């Protein structure tokens, strides 16, 4: 526990500069140990990767408008969908909220001056970039065509594409994930401001903590899976090769042991963001605070127990299938708890619909839909039919894009004034949020139907009767792409022409709003001491206990 603050002696002066103006050289940015600058470095990198991954998807969806292979060669198509998956999962979704919003906001929310290990934080960004460079090299040199799941023995023995370079790139980037998670756990344990007890923590912190546990425990298993595939390619060992007595299913178990918890790395932080936005724009404490908090941990624990639901048709024993099916239903329950609590939080609130709230509500709706289709795929007999079809593609995109990306955008908009000192243009932002919501549904809802009809995933050519739905999906994708283009533009615009933001434009609760926008390098003039409960909106709004808005 932090001792009574002596830090006041270090920075007990009115900060004259914010973190952005504390040095304009490239060197001051590339050698920074300020968590806020590192967050911005991450923001730039992951946006770049999002664009690359999005371009890959654009070509895929364009080609899928016709049943034949009209746009690119099949080998190229296979490399494109692999690139899309690898980049979006490992270089966008996994880092996104933790590395950008987590890095920026966690120390501020805790009343700390930085994360526990600032230099390790900078190292994690460099490691991320190094991994990214390897992967980009692999893409430019010729690409990899195994799918982001790298199943053996295709990846270990048969594919003659750049598997090694990509595997090395992802392996390296994994360390970035581990270091980030490690940093968060230690910071949350050791650097909370005086008075900030566990049950006064913002729910974003709870979800980042749960995410960090998964990052720390799960990522190494991905590392060993990729390592073994690499060794098999390099040294010719037969861990996964049946001709040498190996078992290709072993790869699937090792891979999914990480990659299933990984999807919770991708969604838990978004849930944390939603848990911050909804109370702010309802002007009241979230309903069931401790249930929302504990559900994050329940999800983290259960997430490690369900990986076998990716192996229902693989040859895994049917009894194992049954165990994994039951556990998969159990992991759905804490998520349902969150959705119900968020909805109940709206009751008796005083609700306004600024952009962050639009994203948060969109998240709740789309995550609910995606999560409900999880019930479909956890049902053994149904999964046999929809496994490896577009139903699965729709299921995970509803959660990853309709959920995680919407949550990320909501968080970016919510904390944009804090991070940049500027307000984004509200009208354009609301328009974009709605456009994204509409475009998203048009893109991915038809894919549920396609999947149940039987269209397999990773198909370049397909039977003609699937064309109508594919065209609908591609049309929706164009709207979705356009929708993403707007925030990219107006957010950059706002850096130069946006209105100057006050320290707390949303009148939100949370220590991050108790300092300037943008914050000074050391975050706070004096270490705050916490005496209120979390989300004390009644106090903030000056509402008397008898109720009624001011």
């Amino acid at each position: 526990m932090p001792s009574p603050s002596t830090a006041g002696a270090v920075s007990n002066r009115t900060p004259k500069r914010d973190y952005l103006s504390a040095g304009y050289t490239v060197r001051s940015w590339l050698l920074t140990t300020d968590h806020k600058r590192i967050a911005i470095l991450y923001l730039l990198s992951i946006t770049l990767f999002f664009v690359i991954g999005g371009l890959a998807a654009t070509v895929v969806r364009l080609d899928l408008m016709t049943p034949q292979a009209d746009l690119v060669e099949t080998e190229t198509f296979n490399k494109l969908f692999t690139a899309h998956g690898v980049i979006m999962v490992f270089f966008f979704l996994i880092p996104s909220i933790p590395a950008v919003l987590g890095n920026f906001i966690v120390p501020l929310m805790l009343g700390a001056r930085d994360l526990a290990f600032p230099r390790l934080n900078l190292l994690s960004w460099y490691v991320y970039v190094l991994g990214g460079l390897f992967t980009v090299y692999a893409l430019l040199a010729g690409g990899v065509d195994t799918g982001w799941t790298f199943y053996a023995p295709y990846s270990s023995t048969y594919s003659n594409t750049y598997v090694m370079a990509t595997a090395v790139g992802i392996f390296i980037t994994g360390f970035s994930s581990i270091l980030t998670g490690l940093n968060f756990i230690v910071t949350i344990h050791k650097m909370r401001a005086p008075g900030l007890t566990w049950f006064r923590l913002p729910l974003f912190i709870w979800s980042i903590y749960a995410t960090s546990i998964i990052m720390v425990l799960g990522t190494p298993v991905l590392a060993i899976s990729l390592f073994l595939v690499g060794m098999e390619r390099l040294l010719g060992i037969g861990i996964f090769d049946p001709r040498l007595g190996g078992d290709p299913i072993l790869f699937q178990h090792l891979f999914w042991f990480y990659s299933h918890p990984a999807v919770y790395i991708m969604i838990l932080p978004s849930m944390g963001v939603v848990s911050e936005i909804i109370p702010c724009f309802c002007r009241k404490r979230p309903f069931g605070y401790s249930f929302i908090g504990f559900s994050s941990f329940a999800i983290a624990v259960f997430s490690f127990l369900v990986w076998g639901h990716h192996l229902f048709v693989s040859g895994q024993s049917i009894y194992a299938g049954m165990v994994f099916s039951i556990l998969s239903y159990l992991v759905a329950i804490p998520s349902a708890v969150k959705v119900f609590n968020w909805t109940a939080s709206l009751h008796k609130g005083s609700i306004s619909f600024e952009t962050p709230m639009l994203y948060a509500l969109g998240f709740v709706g789309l995550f609910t839909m995606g999560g409900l289709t999880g019930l479909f795929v956890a049902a053994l007999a149904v999964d046999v039919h929809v496994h490896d079809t577009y139903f699965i593609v729709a299921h995970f995109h509803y959660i990853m894009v309709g959920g995680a990306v919407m949550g990320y955008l909501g968080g970016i908009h919510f904390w944009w004034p804090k991070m940049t000192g500027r307000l984004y243009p509200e009208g354009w932002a609301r328009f974009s949020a709605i456009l994204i919501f509409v475009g998203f549904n048009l893109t991915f809802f038809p894919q549920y139907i396609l999947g149940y009809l039987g269209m397999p995933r990773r198909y370049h050519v397909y039977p003609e009767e699937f064309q109508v739905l594919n065209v609908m999906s591609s049309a929706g994708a164009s709207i979705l792409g356009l929708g993403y283009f707007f925030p990219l533009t107006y957010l950059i615009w706002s850096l130069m022409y946006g209105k100057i933001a006050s320290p707390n434009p949303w009148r939100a609760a949370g220590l991050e709003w108790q300092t300037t926008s943008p914050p000074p390098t050391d975050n706070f003039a004096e270490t705050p001491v916490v005496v209120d409960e979390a989300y004390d909106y009644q106090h903030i709004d000056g509402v008397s206990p008898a109720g009624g808005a001011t």
Partner: protein
Amino acid sequence: MIDDGFRLLPEQASTHAPRVDLLYFFLLGLAVFFTVLIAALIIYFSIKYRSSNRRVDRTPGSGHALVLEIAWMVIPFLISMTIFGWGATLYFSAFRPPAGAMEVRVVAKQWMWKFQHPNGRREINTLHAPLGQPVKLTMISEDVIHSLFVPAFRVKRDVLPGSYATCWFEATRTGKFHLFCAEYCGTNHSRMTGCVVVMEPAEYEAWLGGGLANESPAVAGKRLFEELRCASCHMPEADPVRGPPLQNVYGHEVILKGGPTVTADENYLRESILRPGAKIVQGYEPIMPSFDGQVDEEQLIQLISYIKSLATP
């Protein structure tokens, strides 16, 4: 059926399909219900409690309600367990072919499906099947993992290199139905498709008899068994008998050196031919040479079919 044009739901062409669809529609109803419920609540609360509405009562409650929390944990749990039980029961029956199912051997390779019927007739990418009779597919891959998927039957099974996988179906409609590879297997994964042609039983018999004269796998296997001199160790007339007798081994328990027992199924027989040292039968020495590299998957299927034909059930 193939070339039917635009559909919203796949055809039901097997005994299993309507059962899966029933569960699917139940899930669909459930999903629609909860989606509408949450959406409606969100919209209702958003309108009623919008900040510009000053007249609504916002007297805060306690901010939590244990009864509510428990209710919305228990109810989804009960619903989930129901769905689980339903799905698991169906899954079991999908995995257990009825006794006496007609066996078709399948060998998958990049990028084609090779089928062989019990009487030996072979086909590539198209599978002819009789209406109303259970058909069991025993499948293996020559290279990477593939997956045999027939949407109209709601059946799918990964086809692995190195061990046999089985699935079964009983067709309830005649016609041509899509057959897809459903596990990414390289460049022409999306072209590794075909169809299942379901015919009336009489037509199927007629079709079976046609084509080039083919020997059944068991007959071919007997010939191979002789060519490779298996009998010199494994048949009672061998002198001395150096290997475990094979007349009645398939489907029965085998006691291995050291005590453990194993059921002599197809994977056991295949392994014993390719890696004879892996499981030594009690009372015998590990002297069998490996035939890895000398027999391909098709020949292995033939040998195993022959050994199976020797067994009395």
